[in-house]
């Protein structure tokens, strides 16, 4: 079942008089439960594509359909709502809220929904996630008291807390050393297998691509390879 569909998607940025064609006509289908890597050199358009899938940017041309909704038809409120329900983010520079501790950062997305109450069931889920990412002893720490790897683990737990269909990770290992980066990817893969959550991560590191079972290679805003491994 496809949950993400890009058809003839183009994205242009105008910089004064010149126009940058970041994405130049991309067709892409992503299935539920995929663990997919968007690979390509810097500037090839990885982030731009992830941003459109993540509903924080819109295409200049073409259609992006997420969970059956054409995102071009949604206003800011609608995009925000869908983003909250369907998508979890893992950022390259972690983007934790500095004044909140580990547990509070993880629970933050739950407070944004219509039903912002933390129920006992939700609390158990948060506890489970904290254990899953291995931060049981760091619950009360603020982000600036955590290492890069620990911060990214918080971010992973935060991305999963709303049980989204899709988790997006734009170069999640770029700010981590390779061992830590590998561990983070292993963790993501484990959760993907356990929960069936779709993971999409981008990388410009050839080694990192190995872990994915669906690889999309970009060059200059165009797909040059779209392959599945079994």
């Amino acid at each position, binding site marked *: 079942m496809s949950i993400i569909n890009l058809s003839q998607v183009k994205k242009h940025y105008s910089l004064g008089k010149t126009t940058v064609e970041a994405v130049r006509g991309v067709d892409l289908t992503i299935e539920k439960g995929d663990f997919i890597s968007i690979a390509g050199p810097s500037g090839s358009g990885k982030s731009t594509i992830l941003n459109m899938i993540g509903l924080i940017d819109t295409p200049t041309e073409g259609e992006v359909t997420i969970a059956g909704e054409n995102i071009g038809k949604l206003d800011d*409120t609608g995009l*925000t709502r869908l983003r*909250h329900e369907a998508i979890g983010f893992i*950022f390259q520079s972690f*983007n934790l809220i500095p*004044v909140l501790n580990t547990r509070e950062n993880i629970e933050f*997305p739950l*407070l944004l929904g219509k039903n912002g109450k933390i129920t006992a069931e939700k609390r158990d889920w948060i506890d489970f996630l904290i254990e899953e990412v291995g931060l049981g002893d760091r619950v009360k720490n603020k982000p600036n008291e955590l290492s890069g790897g620990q911060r990214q683990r918080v971010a992973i737990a935060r991305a999963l807390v709303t049980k989204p269909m899709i988790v997006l990770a734009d170069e999640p290992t770029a700010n981590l050393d390779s061992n830590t980066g590998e561990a983070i990817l292993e963790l993501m893969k484990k959760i993907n297998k356990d929960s069936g959550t779709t993971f999409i991560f981008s990388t410009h590191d050839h080694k990192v691509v190995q872990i994915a079972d669906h690889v999309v290679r970009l060059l200059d805003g165009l797909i040059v390879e779209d392959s599945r491994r079994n």
Partner: protein
Amino acid sequence: MIWRIAMRNLIQHRTKTIIIGSLVALGIMLTLIGNCLITTMGSGITKSFTDNFTGEILVTASGAKAGVFGAQSDEMFGPPVISVLKDYDAALAKVKALPGLKSWTPQLSGYAVFNFEEKGSDFSLLFGIDPADYFKSMDNVNIISGRRLAPGEEGMMLNRKMQDSLKKSMSVNLKVGDTIQLNSFGDAGFKIREVPIVAIFEFKAANQRIFTPSFVDSTTLRVLLGKNVGPTEKVQVSKEATALIDANPDSLFGDDTTAAAQTVSGSGKVLTEQGLKTMLGGKVAASVPPPGGGAWNFILVRLNPGVKAEPLIKELNREFEKDGIKANAQGWQISGSPDSYTFAALGLIFNIAMILLAVVSIIIIMNTLVISVMERTSEIGTMRALGAQKMLVRKMFIAETLSVTVLFGLVGIVLGAIVVAILNVVGLPADSDFLAVIFGGKILKPVVSLKPLLTSMGLILLIGSVSWIYPVALALKVSPLKAITTD
């Protein structure tokens, strides 16, 4: 959650919070202190004028620009003209019907020359009163020597400031028991009258900066001013109190004369019957007694404690207009000028300063918030990316602004109240006449009252509810993309 984040952000950015907070606290504190001073001064100056000179309501002839001290600034030369309240009886009837009326008293005001022959002369303001009535309404004098005027008695209570100034300027040493010659020269011709000094007094109020009125009985002043003398006074005039200055006075007027003698000053005119009538003033007029016992300039109205004058003044004026009564009711301010103007100007300056302070606070807070929005673009973008609606961002910044302004505003109120309380115990001395007027007394003991408190709170709310508008608009423009593009 919003509040938790807001509070933690405030603590996180302590320095900024403390700077903004101290500004708010200081501003609110100064505003409260200033407002309390102004309010206390206001009630002080109001009280000293109403208690000492005007009553809560002063009824004058309609169109009269003058209060009890005479005409205002446009009258630069010569004695001010103070209009007679012709519709005295009709006006009085309306006054008597006022709810909350405590008492009332009529009064005359006029200027006369204190004549000391070769030693010189001086110009002075006189209040013509019925002592029984007047002092029942106005408990405004401290007798230094002598006694109050008795009802029906002709005589003068001399203001100590006038006594001092006469001593200084022409070494005239007046004391109780002396007689003083009063002259007047106006539309009604030149008049002379001699009265005994029955008292040296001073006003209880400190604010007799410019005016140093003395009291005389109403008959004496009426005669000097060439106004109608009523039948009451005519009967009550005693011969001892009346002195005739002109040559051969007894043969002219006899013992039971009501009025002062007079000469047509230096003109050498033959005394025609008409001229004589004019000069006789009081006596001639008395033969056609006006209703209500003689001419008056004013009715001073005292209200029961706590009764507000403003609405009653309006009501009186409505009634006067309705019945075609040529009278006008006003507050103390007309008589109180220029002091009331000085005070009003002071209040205005203070209000402008307060508004400037609020504007400056708002701008500084706004500026700090704008910086804070820019510093936190990534954080705002992240929240938006995680699914926070614009409303939440808005609420978060409002929460921060409101908690700073309200918290530190209240600190300002408490500090301000403490300062005012200390000033109340210590007291601010008025070391100049001007300050005495502004303070409405020799020492100012400001009190914290409701109005300044409400003003301060209103100011806090204003600052708290305006300063975030622009920064929040900026914050709302932050796109979730900023979560990624700024780090």
